[in-house]
């Protein structure tokens, strides 16, 4: 059996930095009776014989990874795990960040099914490796989608676009590129942000700092704090911006506020890195949801853009996305693209074919594109309607507090403002599942379950402070 020290190491909470891992595992290794690692000096006069080495795989403690601790459960996925275990017939899952229909079912868009069928029925279609940069047609269409077909950056060939694995993959490839080729190694991310952002950028080799974003008092934007923090960032720092439908708060700057942010950033040469995971999904309009991005492109400056088709095309598991880098000139864009390949090749060689093929099929066919915009608007409208219904339900119950943020916030998520005790209470008494920061996924609501949620919030707010 593993020694007490090894068990202790395994029981420790996962340290947040790799150097702690290293110190821990080094310490534990010294305490183990035998170690597979030796210095070369020791190896030179080792008298290890066949008999002294465990020959059966079942021998305990022979793995080089024996000291490794189990990673903590992912906080977001953990919510669904708990929900699945709950036998209550009235349970509601507001943790998941995937769209659900009114019946609570996942949705594959009709236009996606059609595109899939077309691909299957095309026998001449080949499934070879894509180029490192992905499907060329997909890349062009994606850039047009986010920047606008008439975008000067595209007309001037200043955009380098590479297909990546959804938003995560695009962020990671962009982060790695910046760590290698950009002279500033610090990225500022909003407080709060999607839980995976800090890890993506840290592993890319960047230093992560945050700027104020959410104001708990108003449940809206801390605009003053945001401007102050970006003003005091060192020149040329990288700044992560959620293009629309901020995750997890649902709080977006207004167009005027975006303009002020743009001016400030350009005056300090701060490099924008946009994360666009909800284009079309937030307001129902693809162009409207891209306004913030296009504003920055219009001033002729450079930026990075991570695009995801997980939600707006419902392609979640197919991992479809694109990283675009808008550069100062066409020459630079060519060189940048060549260097992006060097990041991608040792990571996974080339991106997956299926999802990108579906997207390209849809985007290049005007009839299918239109059908997509209608289905997209329907999803966005259902979510907006859920917001309204929840707000109305709380109002009609006379629930104390200002709940207007529910209809002011936008996108899949609402930061309710509930504290972790209230969240736990709602799980316990009402079988409502959400992340402990009070974030609810509006996509998990339906007309049927809104009253139940409103009751739960009402109870939590009146019984616990």
């Amino acid at each position, binding site marked *: 059996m593993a020694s007490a020290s090894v068990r202790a190491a395994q029981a420790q909470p996962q340290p947040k930095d*790799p150097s702690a*891992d*290293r110190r821990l595992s080094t310490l534990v290794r010294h305490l183990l009776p035998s170690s*597979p*690692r*030796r210095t*070369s000096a020791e*190896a030179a006069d080792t008298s*290890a014989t066949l008999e002294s*080495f*465990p020959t059966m*795989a079942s021998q*305990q*403690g*022979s*793995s*080089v*990874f*024996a000291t*490794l601790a*189990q990673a903590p459960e992912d906080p977001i*996925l953990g919510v669904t795990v708990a929900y699945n275990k709950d036998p209550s017939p009235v349970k509601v899952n507001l943790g998941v960040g995937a769209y659900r229909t009114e019946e609570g079912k*996942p949705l594959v868009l009709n236009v996606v*099914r059609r595109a899939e069928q077309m691909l299957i029925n095309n026998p001449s279609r080949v*499934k*070879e*490796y894509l180029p*490192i940069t992905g499907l060329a047609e997909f890349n062009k269409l994606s850039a047009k989608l986010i920047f606008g077909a008439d975008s000067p950056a595209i007309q001037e060939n200043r955009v380098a676009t590479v297909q990546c*694995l*959804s938003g*995560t993959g695009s962020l990671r490839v962009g982060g790695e590129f910046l760590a290698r*080729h950009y002279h500033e190694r610090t990225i500022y991310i909003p407080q709060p942000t999607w839980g*995976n952002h800090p890890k993506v950028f*840290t592993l890319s080799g960047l230093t992560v700092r945050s700027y104020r974003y959410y104001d708990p008092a108003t449940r809206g934007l801390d605009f003053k704090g945001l401007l102050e923090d970006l003003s005091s960032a060192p020149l*040329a720092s990288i700044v992560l911006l959620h293009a629309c439908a901020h995750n997890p708060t649902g709080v977006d700057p207004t167009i005027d506020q975006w303009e002020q942010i743009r001016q400030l950033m350009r005056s300090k040469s701060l*490099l924008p890195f946009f994360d666009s995971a909800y284009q079309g999904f937030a307001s129902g309009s693809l162009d409207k949801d891209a306004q913030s991005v296009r504003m920055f492109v219009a001033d002729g400056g*450079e930026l990075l853009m991570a695009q995801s088709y997980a939600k707006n095309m419902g*392609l*979640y*598991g*197919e*991992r479809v996305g694109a990283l675009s*880098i808008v*550069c*100062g*000139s066409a020459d*630079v864009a060519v060189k*940048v693209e*060549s*260097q992006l*390949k*060097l990041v991608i090749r*040792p990571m*996974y*060689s080339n*991106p*997956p*074919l*299926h*999802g990108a093929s579906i997207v390209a099929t849809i985007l290049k066919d005007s009839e299918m594109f239109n059908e997509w915009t209608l289905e997209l608007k329907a999803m966005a409208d259902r979510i907006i309607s859920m917001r309204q219904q929840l707000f109305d339900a709380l109002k009609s119950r006379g629930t104390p507090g200002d709940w207007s943020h529910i209809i002011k916030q936008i996108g899949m998520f609402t930061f309710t403002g509930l504290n972790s005790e209230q969240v736990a209470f709602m799980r316990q008494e009402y079988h409502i599942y959400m992340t402990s920061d009070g974030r609810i996924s509006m996509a998990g609501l339906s007309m049927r379950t809104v009253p139940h949620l409103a009751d739960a919030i009402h109870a939590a707010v009146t019984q616990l402070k």
Partner: protein
Amino acid sequence: MASWFGHVEPAPKDPILGVTEAFLADPSPDKVNVGVGAYRDDNGQPVVLECVREAERRIAGSMNMEYLPMGGSVKMIDESLKLAYGEDSDFIKDKRIAAVQALSGTGACRLFADFQKRFLPDTQIYIPTPTWANHHNIWRDAHVPQRTFTYYHPESRGLDFSGLMDDIKNAPDGSFFLLHACAHNPTGVDPSEEQWREISHQFKVKKHFPFFDMAYQGFASGDPERDAKAIHIFLEDGHQVGCAQSYAKNLGLYGQRAGCLSVLCDDEMQAVAVKSQLQQLARPMYSNPPLHGALIVSTILSDPELKTLWLKEVKGMADRIIGMRKALKENLEELGSPLSWEHITNQIGMFCYSGMTPEQVDRLTKEFHIYMTRNGRISMAGVTTGNVAYLANAIHEVTKSN
């Protein structure tokens, strides 16, 4: 217009993928592509396996596209482990294998390299000379120091077995080694079963960690069980291996990026811990792996009829390549080449290390519009009954004065 990225250098072209780019740009009707390692049928056409087409028909319209778990498709992982470790493997029964779905072989190697860096930061990786060029890039980007070990013997165009064994013995105890499970890329030179046993024995003495890259299971000999023999020898000897599996070639799933990374652990608890940590490395890279390829793999391997069809088709591919090796060698002999071409049929898998120099390869390209990587590696999958004579003639022309 001013740019923050004006100083960025244009990156050198990828040596392997760059070959196909050049081939595509060539207007000559005689051109032959024996560069990239993707299978071609005897008409020089890419192939989608029948079992894959059928699997896709079954999948389309019936599945949703929700996120897979971070570790990927459980069903696909289960089938992959059976394929690599054996249907009745005790390690599978005892749940001792930590495994995650990965982005084909590249992604599996990269996850392992990142894992090695995070949890065994003082280790390095020994990589055979030569190897698939991207292996060096993978471990470099993971910041794991690399060393090389002797492998290929240029004079015999075979294995430098004594050099290999010396390097194994001289490496510090507990070193990490990258081994090609079968059909070594780029040489096609594999150790014999006897030699694998000796290597495994020496690994035990030295307590080395064997990491297998298995990109050609089934594709090398035509028999998946036979192609996994090296791994089984090591498992029988008590090694706790790591393994990168790819479905790019053997299932023809190239662009779907379907693969699996597995690590054999002491026990179930450790396997759970290791898997959780592998997931933590995948999460900030791509969150969760792509669905489509995983569905195809699990649909085929879990259905007896489809699996039988697959076994037939993969054998067909392997047999065609073995046939082309024979044809190329015979053609060269008939042309009266002064050199020995035994290695063409001694070597196995998709690639043949011809022994030609970069200059000779350049001549093949310029004069004969034949495209291959400059290390003289020929992708036998690109050889057909239609072009083998032309290819043999060209090779003869550039090498006859050797």
